[in-house]
């Protein structure tokens, strides 16, 4: 039987990060990926002969500790965010700066800048917490926990150093809802709507839900700017893979793990779908929380833990629509540079909230919230064709009546129709289209419920209780098993942080 020090299940960015960290410490590491390509949600797709980002299309929030530890060198172009407006007065945001697309001043520019900068400051602060295991809740102040509590104490101190007023503001808003926060400062409209949409991207929540401010802050943890990586997301994932491989990790694709082998409450290896076994005393799983539990066998978990993992909410609401266009879309009122930015259709905070309502009842929203990118405006495709990559919210996992062809076409038509209002003629240029519903995303990437973060990022599922009370410290039931994906602290987005933190935890216990 083949033998490794550690096996990582899943070659998404978290799995590859974990592998790189472990291999960097001289461990013999094997990464097993069930798909034939790397990257999980960052994988590249092909539609009508044109390459496009199948799911994730932009880079932000990558954890600097991960970049440092893996020595990642990414060429990514920061891009403006454009909030499209029905009246043609589109708003262009570059960091904290907001102005109309024609260059004139936005009346809320000052208020926006203050709010945005504050959120980025808070985000940077919380980003510290993402770089370590969440605080341990057990009462005894053992030496082992001193580090984790230290992180919390340092957070408190940094908070304090921001000044009393900022500390009060942080403590007031951290658990509150994005709608109030935004509308307390800005008039409702595309600018406010853009912030609200960012607060709820991928979430089973509208901006009026308490906790959405935290999601917004989390998204802004690394400064907030979205970037289009040169060479697409595939270049990013290749960089992760290379970091793992140069450190000596072995990556195998098309290798689905059927179960994690447990003997005497200890991990001893994995069994692949074809029955072969690979032995290792340490296994890190980047699958969803409940999926990882099932791989190890539910009987290895306490009944309460199984119940909590079953209750871990993973209701995906974001779908992906990819379009191939015969030519370049022309957006009214946008320069080519602006049009190649991150385009948001989120007319107002209220509109975002209203778009959320139907999904609660398994219905398809009439007016979806859209984040669209036309990557071919930045990096043209050889064919001369263009692609639109759009994240669409809110789309139910299982609509009443199921995902019939008609239901799918409705969503695609909504997206095409919405874009066509701003780029007249776009509808006529569509030569191919595809919709990936949350269910499709689940079956393709394994993300439970098609949830982008492997589980709702609401406060009752974060930090010391993510993914479940008692399982929040990467150690995942039997000795030697770790949860290293987005279901673990700090959660989703292309951060690499769960993978890195889990690997560090595993290394510590391997040394013990």
């Amino acid at each position, binding site marked *: 039987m083949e033998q490794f020090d550690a096996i990582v299940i899943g070659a998404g960015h978290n799995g590859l990060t974990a592998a790189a960290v472990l291999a960097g410490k001289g461990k013999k590491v094997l990464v097993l990926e069930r798909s034939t390509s790397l990257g999980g949600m960052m994988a590249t797709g092909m539609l009508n002969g044109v390459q496009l980002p199948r799911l994730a299309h932009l880079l932000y929030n990558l954890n600097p500790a991960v970049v440092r530890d893996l020595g990642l060198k990414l060429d990514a172009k920061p891009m403006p965010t454009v909030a499209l407006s029905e009246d043609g007065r589109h708003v262009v945001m570059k960091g904290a700066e907001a102005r109309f697309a024609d260059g004139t001043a936005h009346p809320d520019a000052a208020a926006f800048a203050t709010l945005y900068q504050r959120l980025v400051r808070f985000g940077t602060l919380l980003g510290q917490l993402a770089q370590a295991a969440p605080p341990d809740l057990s009462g005894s102040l053992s030496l082992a926990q001193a580090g984790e509590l230290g992180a919390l104490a340092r957070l408190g101190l940094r908070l304090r150093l921001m000044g009393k007023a900022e500390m009060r503001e942080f403590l007031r808003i951290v658990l509150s809802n994005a709608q109030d926060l935004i509308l307390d400062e800005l008039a409702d409209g595309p600018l406010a709507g853009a912030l609200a949409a960012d607060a709820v991207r991928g979430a089973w929540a509208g901006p009026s839900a308490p906790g959405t401010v935290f999601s917004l802050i989390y998204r802004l943890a690394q400064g907030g700017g979205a970037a289009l990586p040169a060479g697409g997301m595939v270049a990013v994932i290749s960089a992760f893979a290379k970091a793992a491989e140069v450190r000596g990790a072995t990556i195998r694709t098309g290798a689905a793990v059927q179960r994690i082998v447990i003997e*005497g409450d200890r991990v001893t290896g994995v069994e692949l779908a074809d029955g072969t076994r690979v032995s290792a005393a340490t296994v890190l799983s980047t699958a969803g929380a409940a999926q990882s539990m099932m791989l190890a066998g*539910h009987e290895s978990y*306490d009944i309460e*833990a199984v119940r909590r993992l079953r209750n871990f909410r993973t209701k995906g609401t974001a779908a992906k629509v990819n379009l191939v266009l015969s030519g370049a879309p022309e957006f009214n009122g946008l320069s080519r540079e602006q049009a190649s930015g991150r385009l948001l259709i989120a007319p107002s905070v209220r509109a975002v909230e209203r778009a959320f309502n139907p999904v609660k009842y398994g219905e398809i929203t009439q007016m979806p919230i859209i984040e669209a990118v036309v990557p071919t405006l930045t990096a043209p495709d050889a064919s001369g064709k263009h692609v639109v990559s759009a994240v669409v919210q809110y789309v139910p996992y299982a609509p009443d009546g199921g995902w019939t062809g008609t239901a799918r076409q409705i969503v695609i038509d909504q997206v095409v129709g919405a874009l066509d209002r701003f780029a007249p003629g776009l509808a006529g240029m569509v030569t191919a289209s595809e919709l990936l519903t949350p269910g499709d995303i689940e079956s393709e990437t394994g993300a439970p419920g098609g949830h982008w973060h492997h589980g709702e990022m609401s406060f009752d599922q974060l930090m010391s209780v993510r993914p479940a009370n008692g399982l929040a410290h990467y150690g995942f039931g039997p000795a030697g098993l770790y949860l290293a994906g987005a279901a673990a602290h700090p959660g989703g987005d292309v951060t690499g942080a769960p993978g890195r933190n889990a690997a560090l935890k595993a290394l510590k216990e391997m040394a013990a």
Partner: protein
Amino acid sequence: MKDTRHDLPPEHIPLGLIPTPFQPRLELLSRTKDWMNWAGYISPAVLDTMEFEYFAIRNQATLFDISPMHKYRISGPEALAMLNRLVTRDVRKLAPGRVAYVMWCDEDGMVIDDGTLFRLSETEFRLCCQEPQFSWLLDAAWGYDAQIEDESHNVAGLSLQGPTSASVLRGAGFEIDTLRPFDLAEVEPGLVISRTGFTGDLGYELWISPDRALALWDRLWDAGQIWGIRAIGYHALNMARIEAGFIAAGVEFQPIHHTLRLHRGRTPLELGFAWLVDFDKGHFNGRRALAAHAKRGPRSMIVKLDIGGFKPAADALIYHRKKREVGHVTSAMWSPTLKRNIALAEIRAPFGTDRTSDLWVEIYLNQEGVWQRRMARATVLSQPFFRNPRARATPPAAF
């Protein structure tokens, strides 16, 4: 989403206490009309006189209605695996036709409840316990090919205890001579007899469908006349229970699912049941927490006490060297059979475990309106108070 539609007007549930299948007989036998609430059922506290009912347990044969016990049928190809993950013992060692005393814990190793597990066949089990467990068993069965059925209301139970109980059964025409302690047998279609009980004496429990309950009662009652059979209430049974040194849920330990202050939960180790915990059988609920507990040692221990003087030490506090409070009595009585003043008690470690000398019990007694405080010496015992070879003899003697 469950459809709650009804075509007919709703069937209203009964309010107040409801009768067990044996209530018609108990009603006639009750002179005291002293009823208790046992899981919503009418249950006798005393039927006639507690002392006489108690002596019937130790001298003749007694009938106690245990129908209100919670009973669950666990069946299916993975019933065994499911139960082995639930309880702390290794259920694989329980052969069909055998009964085992079991405990089960929450994830922190705190006892949820104790009970008796009947292995009816390779794939069928029955769990009898004091606390309702249906939702817990359903959660425990998630992922297993095992079905849980709540048969609490579908199985009537009757406990026949006392030195002449085997004779009563023989007289009623049942073949029970080969039944060893903790054996069970379906002696007639639909009637299961197990050699189990809560008295520490010779005794049996009989399980039957409710519609045949009264006929069974009458059959035993008739056969028992020459063997001094007597129906009893809870208080007499509780005396026998304390003499046998058996712990009771809600008395010696607080079932953790009904405990608001979670630190009041207790591990099996702290209840004196380390022998029930099999750390080597694979994972079971609370195993990791219990292993950590075992390393740290118990916080307290349930012990048996022999107490000086003649006054029962109910609700008493326990002191070391008459000074330091180290625990409390959970159950206490003057034992009419042993002629000793006995008690079960919870004592904080290291007292009761490593340091068992110089323990004192503070007894308050009221004599005709005047309260007195007495300190009585307490000795920790390692053996049950009441032991009698007749309880284990197979085949059992006539009396």
